[in-house]
């Protein structure tokens, strides 16, 4: 009997056993089965993204060898790979479920992954600002996404950062304004 077992990738990520099932890489003609396949892929993509701190997934990632996503979009041990149309359909389902957003908008080839929802990022951001004693100071986006000491926000895409700031602004915990060379933001303590 074929045993589908878990596998640890060179980067240390533990692949679920379903990843060693050959039909997992095929878009299923039965809609109920495909829903299962898609759900499993969604879980896998988000968990891998969180593990490797990846924020962007492109349909092309299914076709390019040597990319960030090779470890999960391909399985060399059973010689299977996810096809671009299949990945595109998974991505579209993820967007419908608000687990990803097309970025830039008005195209469907690339998404921003929400392994943390923008609301969660807003809290992470506010917590980081207050614990590092930067409340009430003016920060640039670069100060936040490329801090001297690595933080959970390091490399956060600007679009996601803007969404998080917008969420904080609604509760008066952040204020966005133009500065000499771009945009600046100031955070305030929670009331």
């Amino acid at each position, binding site marked *: 009997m074929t045993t589908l077992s878990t596998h640890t990738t060179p980067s240390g990520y533990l692949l679920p056993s379903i990843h060693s099932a050959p039909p*997992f890489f095929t878009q299923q003609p039965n809609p109920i089965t495909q829903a299962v396949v898609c759900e499993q892929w969604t879980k896998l993509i988000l968990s891998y993204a969180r593990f490797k701190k990846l924020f962007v997934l492109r349909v092309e990632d299914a076709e390019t060898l040597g990319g960030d996503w090779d470890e999960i979009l391909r399985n060399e041990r059973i010689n299977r790979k996810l096809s671009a149309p299949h990945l595109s359909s998974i991505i579209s389902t993820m967007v419908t479920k608000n687990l990803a957003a097309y970025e830039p908008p008005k195209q469907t080839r690339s998404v921003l992954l929400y392994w943390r929802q923008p609301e969660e990022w807003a809290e992470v951001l506010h917590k980081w600002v207050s614990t590092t004693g930067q409340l009430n100071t003016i920060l640039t986006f670069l100060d936040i996404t490329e801090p001297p000491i690595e933080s959970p926000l390091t490399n956060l895409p600007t679009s996601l950062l803007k969404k998080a700031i917008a969420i904080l602004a609604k509760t008066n915990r952040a204020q966005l304004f133009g500065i000499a060379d771009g945009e600046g933001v100031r955070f305030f303590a929670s009331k």
Partner: protein
Amino acid sequence: MHRLGGVGLAAFDRHEQSKRSFAELSSELSHSQIENLQAELTQFRSALAHFATTHRDSIKSDPSFRHAFQQMCSSIGVDPLAGPRKGGWWAEMLGLGDWHYELGVQIVDVCVSTRERNGGLIEMTELIRLVSMLRGVQGGIITDDDFTRSIKTLQPLGAGYEVVHIGGRKMVRSVVKELDEDQNTVLAVAQDAGGRVVEEMLVNRKGWTHDRARTALENMLLRDGLCWLDDQDEQHGRAYWVPSVMKWDV
């Protein structure tokens, strides 16, 4: 000679009197018999209660003991699984009815949670493995026999829970769906091949026509959700995988 019954009026009195005495005697006798029986029953009950309390834990934890106990019960015509309603004094004393219901609930749990990926058909060994994982170490060892019994208790639910034999293996079906003969054959072939079936296997091994093989496989794929498609198969391009006979290390 003076006959006991006698003749004349006095005989009636005597007759009545003896009748009364007999009646007294008989009621006395039956009274003592009932008392005896009650005493025996009490003794039997207390013996059973004693048995139940001393062996309850081993019945629940030791599969061979449980099997022997169940055989003993069936030989004396007692159903230890008779629920609390059906005179389940036994069940109450042993908690065995509950034990089986509990197992039944866990079986349903596993069947339902794996249904989407296996189409409502799961191999017995796999079911046992998953239920055992659910119960944890303290659950003790559970056998094939226990599962078969528990699945029987699930039958009144009408959800189709049944043990079916496919290709010499026991499988548990959890959907109201009759498997036709062709599907049984496909499942048996898949079992031998570790889950993978292609048209050619059915043509070569079972002498089917390509049409028959394709129809059976496509029905299982599209209509029943019993198998998954693999369109990257190295040899045939299109292979069908039956998840219920694949072993999932989840």
